[in-house]
């Protein structure tokens, strides 16, 4: 049986709840979980001030509430277990996580899985800016794991990502895969502008036409072998049209101001 956190109070300033992780809940009774600390602005509070806690921890945490938008850092640094969130969740979800799984039935805002190194995040709604990105001033974004966004993501998805997969069912914003070092980004909808600016290696795939930077050059149209494998995997998560699995892709190389060993693949039919 999972442990349930049901929201009973609304934070009126940002709340930092980096204690909501399976590792911190392990071995705790509901009363013990209620005593774990959260920061409500600059004020130290308890989880029990904002959530009623029930159930028994078996590796899964269920968080439910209509006012979770100010609750930041859920699952930050987690390495195992499952967090299931029902509601729209706040910033820094799964920041620097190394394992386990976070599922959100709702929308997420900025910084989903920044600098994560492993594990899986699945957002059934939309996500904000900086999905799987590096924090400002850091050289590397996510270095492993998988982020699935069923809806749209905004700017800088995969900023400086070093490895792992980001799959976006809808559209992505500007600078998708900016400064990317390696890894894969799939966007079933449309890419924003300036995709892959400064990318060194890695792959960015989109099923729609896109305007690329003048430093990207067309190389060929072909059927990458791995595409079918990836898309078959993604088709188990969200709807992927049959023709994408067997279609050809236009390959553009870039970014020529950097190594020019990255690729942008656009579905060609």
């Amino acid at each position, binding site marked *: 049986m999972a442990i349930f956190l049901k929201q009973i109070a609304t934070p009126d300033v*940002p709340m930092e709840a980096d204690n909501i992780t399976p590792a911190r809940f392990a071995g705790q009774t509901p009363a013990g979980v209620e005593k774990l600390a959260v920061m409500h*602005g600059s004020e130290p509070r308890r989880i029990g001030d904002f959530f009623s806690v029930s159930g028994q921890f078996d590796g899964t945490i269920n968080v439910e509430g209509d006012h979770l938008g100010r609750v930041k850092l859920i699952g930050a640094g987690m390495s195992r277990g499952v967090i299931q969130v029902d509601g729209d969740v706040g910033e820094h979800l799964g920041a620097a996580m190394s394992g386990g799984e976070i599922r959100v039935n709702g929308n997420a805002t900025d910084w989903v899985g920044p600098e994560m190194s492993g594990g899986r995040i699945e957002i059934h709604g939309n996500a904000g800016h*900086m999905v799987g990105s590096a924090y400002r001033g850091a050289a590397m974004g996510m270095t492993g794991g998988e982020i699935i966004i069923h809806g749209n993501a905004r700017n800088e998805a995969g900023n400086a990502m070093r490895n792992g997969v980001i799959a976006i069912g809808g559209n992505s914003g500007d600078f998708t895969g900016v400064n990317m070092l390696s890894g894969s980004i799939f966007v079933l909808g449309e890419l924003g502008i300036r995709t892959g600016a400064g990318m060194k290696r890695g792959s960015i795939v989109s099923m729609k036409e896109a305007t690329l930077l003048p430093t990207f050059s067309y190389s060929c149209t072909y059927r990458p072998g791995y595409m079918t494998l990836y898309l078959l995997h993604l088709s188990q998560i969200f709807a992927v049209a049959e023709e994408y699995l067997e279609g050809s892709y236009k390959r553009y190389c870039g970014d020529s101001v950097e190594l020019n060993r990255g690729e942008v693949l656009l579905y060609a039919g």
Partner: protein
Amino acid sequence: MSENIKVVENATCTFCGCVCDDMILTVDLDEKRITKSKNACILGKAWFAEHYIEEDAPAAMIDNKPVSIEEAVEEAARTLVNARFPITYGLSDTTCEAQRQAVAITDSIKGNIDTTTSVCHGPSGIALQGVGESTMTLGEVKNRADLVIYWGGNPAESHPRHFGRYAVTAKGMFTPRGKKDRHVVVVDVRRTPSAPAANQFIQVKPGKDFEVLWALRALVKNRAIDPDIEAITGVSLETLQELVDRMKNCRYGVLFFGMGLTMTRGRHFNSGALLALATDLNEYTHFVAKPVRGHGNVTGADNVMSWQTGYPFGVNFSRGFPRFNPGEFTTVDLLAKQDVDAALIIATDPASNFPQAAIDHLAKIPVICLDTKTSHTSQLAHVAFRTSTYGINTEGTVYRMDDVPITLRKAFDSPFPTDEEILTAVKKRVRELVLAKGRARGATGESKAAAPVQAI
């Protein structure tokens, strides 16, 4: 005009980031006005001529009712200490000494501090952190620069003395003939009044600065670019190649950039592209880049914040140590998301220039405002202080846009206290209250001392 006249030599104009320190001010001490400001540009003349003191105005008000300064300081300190997520904002039009006190207050109340940098060259701050900066002082530009490029700015109207004093017509050690020894390029989306001062004007399609800068970077590195570059950006490949050759072959090149880069789509990546271009060019020659800053001491705000907290703007102390995250801890974002429960606004007027959602939230929370004049923010403030004007009534230190500190000279006295005096008094009281609060919390237990939360 009275006969009680004073002349202040080598005074400093703090209107814009040029911080020209060669003003000769004639002051009528009876009228308490500056009657003449020799050497000032049109903006500086207006800055000095329009400065007057409303002696009848109260120095402090609570809810728009006059009170003593002591009462206002007490109320301001209590408001800040009782807040869970207070912000400090502004700081670009006051002295470094006052800025320092503001950082200390924010540290004590575990608040969030941000400056007007976040709505002007904040993206450049992010870019500097990501890309690095090849920097200089304006004195070097005057003495050495033989290629000067202005990108996304209009100094002829925003910084009128930038051309004459530092970068275009200024005569220096290795540029004895002034403009004849320099090639000046203006890059912008429209032909501004700065364009005639340049040898070359390059017009970029709106919103395509990043593409042009990126193409220039590729050309500097001898990499191929899309031959359709003219259709994309409005600038031909020949023009870009010619500019690249000029940049590679100059002795000392400078890229000045303005908010045409930082506040258009792409923001920090636009600034970052330009800074990276300057870095790339250092393979071939000496090349530097510098943002052309607006307010008189916005550069000082960045400097003070950096040496006190480690970060230039958008810094949060909620957990007792500084954290930097633009987008999360920057003022417009925090106000628009209604995350803030008190605000200390210093020497700026966000209620007149922020997005409506941010202003609406500002009107709902207790605001403490320090300003030299009545402003939209001071009118909606819970506690409002009227302070003296820096550079005219207040001495202190400001930083020029090239990070050179300059000492201010006072022209005449003001009956109002300085920002530094008010902030020092607030800091002292805040520290007493924080200590008392800590003792109360220790005596009663944390949860009981904490205020109730809002139940659903």
